[in-house]
């Protein structure tokens, strides 16, 4: 594993060279949002402000075709229509530069579901294997950051292929995996001892700035205990407007919809992001909906992340603490507060 240095003045040229080999996704400012876009030498890379969206779309696109189909008349027997179905799987070698450690750790939440003992999602895994994560150490936490509650940290290496630490005149790149080595290569100068010392200081200061983590492990049982407490969930969800901001910006939200689109005699079956705060998410054809109100739906969103998922996946919480759901929520719904309120809520009386 190597440690290299890139001066600020060299970064764009280096990104340009990376772009020749990979789809290089970098954060870019558009309006007040910071979004991941393929590197464009004409557009500045935004490494200071935190990205508004997570880089999950690099691996899990907002929309992808799972298959294509075509109806064709049998030339021998015109009354007979055959359907041809073909798998669709695409993806290009990709490097994400400037995602944060929380973003990289979040892919582990996906992996446990998309690559399990009972099922392998080949469309996901295909892109996942082609994607290299170069994560930028957060030198300062934001008000909405709580990665350390979730076992992460602003300089955590979990899930990243390369860790990128800001130092005085540039960045130190430390490779963590073979794939990371492949991206970084040998062309860059090694980081000097002084630069390494500075990088370690930045990392340590960032970790120290997070303060004491809060243990939310108790939420796992408590959220189940509060399941039938409609009053609690109505109060917690009152200001929610049931939009998809929290889920679509979330690095760990992995739910999707499957729908068919038809163009004449052919079409595609699409996988698109879906959100559990949508009324239609669980709506059944009969008209019955097991989660009829936003209180039911928010309960599932929080329950899934902090109770059901951990109980299925070795205690791992399906949240990386990036805080995007809080910062970008039109109503500033704060998932930390909901979880802490749940833990603090009086235990409901036992049933019966």
């Amino acid at each position: 594993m190597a440690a290299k240095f890139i001066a600020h003045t060299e970064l764009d040229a280096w990104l340009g060279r990376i772009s020749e080999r990979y789809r290089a996704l970098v954060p870019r400012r558009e309006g007040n949002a910071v979004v991941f876009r393929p590197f464009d030498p004409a557009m500045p890379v935004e490494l200071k402000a935190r990205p508004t969206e997570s880089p999950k779309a690099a691996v899990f696109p907002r929309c992808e075709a799972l298959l294509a189909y075509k109806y064709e008349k049998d030339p021998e027997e015109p009354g007979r229509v055959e359907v041809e179905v073909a798998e669709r799987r695409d993806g290009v070698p990709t490097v994400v530069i400037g995602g944060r450690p929380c973003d990289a750790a979040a892919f582990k939440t996906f992996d446990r579901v998309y690559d399990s003992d009972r099922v392998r999602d080949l469309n996901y895994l295909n892109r996942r294997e082609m994607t290299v994560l170069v994560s930028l150490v957060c030198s300062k936490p934001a008000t909405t950051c709580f990665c350390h509650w979730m076992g992460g940290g602003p300089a955590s290496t979990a899930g990243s292929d390369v860790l990128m630490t800001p130092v005085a005149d540039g960045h130190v790149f430390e490779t963590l995996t073979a794939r990371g080595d492949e991206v970084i290569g040998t062309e860059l100068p090694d980081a000097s001892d002084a630069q390494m010392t500075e990088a370690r200081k930045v990392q340590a200061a960032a970790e120290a700035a997070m303060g004491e983590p809060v243990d939310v492990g108790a939420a796992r049982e408590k959220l189940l205990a509060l399941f039938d407490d409609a009053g609690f969930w109505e109060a917690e969800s009152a200001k929610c407007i049931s939009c998809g901001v929290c889920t679509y910006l979330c690095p760990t939200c992995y739910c999707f919809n499957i729908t068919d689109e038809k163009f004449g005699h052919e079409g595609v079956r699409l996988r698109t992001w879906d959100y559990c705060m949508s009324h239609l998410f669980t709506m059944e054809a009969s008209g019955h909906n097991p989660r009829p109100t936003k209180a039911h739906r928010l309960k599932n969103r929080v329950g899934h992340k902090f109770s059901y998922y951990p109980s299925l996946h070795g205690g791992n919480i399906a949240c990386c603490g990036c805080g995007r759901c809080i910062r970008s929520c039109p109503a500033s719904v704060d998932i930390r507060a909901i979880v802490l309120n749940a833990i603090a809520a009086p235990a409901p009386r036992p049933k019966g």
Partner: protein
Amino acid sequence: MKQAINPYLPSVATIVETIQETPTIKTFRVVLNSEEAMRNFTFHPGQVGQLSVFGTGESTFVINSPPTRMDYLQFSVMCAGEVTAKLHSLSAGDQIGVRAPLGNWFPHEELKGRDIVFIGGGIGMAPLRTLLLYMLDNRGDYGDISVLYGARTPQDMAFQYELPEWLERGDMNTVLTIDVPAEGWEHSVGLIPNVLLEMAPSPGNAVAVTCGPPIMIKFTLQALQKLGFQDDQIITTLEKRMKCGVGICGRCNIGGSYVCVDGPVYTYAQLKALPNEL
């Protein structure tokens, strides 16, 4: 090395026969186009499949033919939404997609030697049919078999081509019921839970297998408890909105249990341990 099977890719299948069971229920008998795939297809009673009408979408239905009769796979579809409406417009010769088998199944091995009480309401009889026929095809493995099948009216009763046999067989006890009296109806009249109480099957070493609309299930469970059935003597099978069918897409969960992979078959004891979100 895990197998590289695309979980979202349906097999193309051809509808070989359709049966208009009731005004709203149509049955499809389908055969996979690949002879090899059809020959190698195995499943257990209670498992489900996703049927595709390409261009419209997918929906989940139980395979209601038994694994002991593999000339075709049978699905009964109640017309309710977009996919089911489109399915109802199809006929023999049309091609659809099939992703199956999915989910868990009735514990037919563990049920050997037990008395079985089937209680089906409306379209809820479909998932019970697969287990019933499987047991009839392995009749010696099981104890007494009773069937209580109810529908709103005689016209709403599916599988009419089989009912005479069920009624006549000496090795099973079949009771049919409708909600209100109708002309020419020679069987029971009354709601399923009430007829069940009249039938009064003995809990002994019996297991009740039930499926039907939520309101029927609610009162049937009460009736079964009144008759002395324990929670682990009651098995049911659930329906939820599903998309992926393989435990990923995140909508059919009841707490941490995914109906598409951990279900659809649950004992009442298992259901009671899950959050209350049916």
